């Protein structure tokens, strides 16, 4: 596995998040090195998705700092729309635009944010769809695609902008079991191409094979972190052990 580089590409420090009276994140620190794949696991409500969404400011942290690729995301002078082009995100429910073709989904931000002309955007979009194995589906509407194909289009939509880091929020949780493999395959290829990735997921097999580091979160804190072999086979914390044995028996 690639040893983490010296300067982290994501550095989140002392992140707190309150939703009203609810204290969802209680001072989380997270550093992700270039080309690293960090896996985040934890029970539902542990704050793992909220943490991920703080990393591109879809969720506004109540306090703390988030620096991605040298850009301070919480600085009011930061152009967040510009910064977000460097941070790709993939959602549990795909969130493809249902009124646009697969290619239209991929090229919208290329044209409206990255300022590419239509022909250029189409070429980049086609290449991105080819990378996820869907070159022949460019003209299809999302409703004509399977869940696995929709999620791969969503990945293509993110990577077309050439992000420095990709965030995955339970990318396979909404998929039928037989469609999970194709999405994980694309993520594996992405990882092999050197993409920095933060993945919230329960796909333990994928984590074992591809993750550099696994974080276990519970009650808004990172309880334990380490290489997958250690976290899955010999966790140091009792809470981690209990959670791992639970998801193993699923």
């Amino acid at each position: 596995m690639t040893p983490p580089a010296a300067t982290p590409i994501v550095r989140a420090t002392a992140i707190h998040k309150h939703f009203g009276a609810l204290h969802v994140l209680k001072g989380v620190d997270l550093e992700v090195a270039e080309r690293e794949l960090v896996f985040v696991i934890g029970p539902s409500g542990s704050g793992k998705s909220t943490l991920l969404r703080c990393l591109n400011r879809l969720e506004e942290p109540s306090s703390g700092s988030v620096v991605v690729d040298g850009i301070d995301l919480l600085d009011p002078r930061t152009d967040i729309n510009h910064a977000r082009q460097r941070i790709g995100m993939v959602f549990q429910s795909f969130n493809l635009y249902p009124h646009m073709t697969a290619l239209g989904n991929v090229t919208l931000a290329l044209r409206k944010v990255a300022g590419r002309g239509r022909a250029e955007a189409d070429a980049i979009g086609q290449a991105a769809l080819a990378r996820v194995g869907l070159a022949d589906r460019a003209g299809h509407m999302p409703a004509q695609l399977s869940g696995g194909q929709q999620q791969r289009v969503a990945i293509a939509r993110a990577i077309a902008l050439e992000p420095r880091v990709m965030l995955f929020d339970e990318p396979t949780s909404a998929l039928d079991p037989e469609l999970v493999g194709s999405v994980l395959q694309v993520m594996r290829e992405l990882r092999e191409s050197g993409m920095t990735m933060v993945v919230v997921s329960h796909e333990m097999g994928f984590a074992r094979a591809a993750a550099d580091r696994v974080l276990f979160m519970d009650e808004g804190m990172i309880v334990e972190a380490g290489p997958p072999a250690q976290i899955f086979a010999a966790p140091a914390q009792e809470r981690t052990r209990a959670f791992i044995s639970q998801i193993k028996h699923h």
Partner: protein
Amino acid sequence: MIETFLNAAILKAAWPILLAGLGNTLALSLLVVPLGLAGGVVLALLSTVRVQWVRWPLMAWVDFFRAFPPLVLLIFLYAGLPFAGLEMGGFGCVAVAFFLNTGAYYGEVLRAGIESVPAGQIEAARSTGLSRLQALAHVVLPQAVRNVMPDLLSNTLEVVKLTSLASVVALPELLFQARQAQSLTYNPTPIVAAAVIYFLLLWPVVRLLSRLENRALAGRR
């Protein structure tokens, strides 16, 4: 009876007047529908702003113009405002009144449409760097319009019917012209003819509307 209500000679004589009225009704509709829609889009977009000092005035505005009878609004603009030194003429009054009234209605329809689009759509768009306004314009609004198309059409139907209100400020639209012809000929045939023209004009929209509604129902099953 037929001599009174469907007099061929009178219809023939009144026809050019009625046609001119129909032309004006169509022109008026082509002005006030886009005007109301534009106002509605602005109100609907403003309704997505979560800031209190935008929300409260917006709600008050929409409530006021939905509750205010459009005929009273029109007469106030036409006959009341000149006392304040503001004269807009019949045409200007109609344009402003419809902008205010139908804009509020279109705004409510579009707001419902925007709220029917899942939040994940805007999040996906924002995550790729689109601004809030870009996400609304390219991702949310097209879906919102599609979701409330039957309501938009039905509202448009109402607006076209409401253009007959312009007759009270002496704008020579279809109803006004029919009344002119009626008083000139002292016969109700022009009014009957106007009614038939309104029906023929709007009936296809009504048919289209019920087809859309049936399709929407079928799609929900």
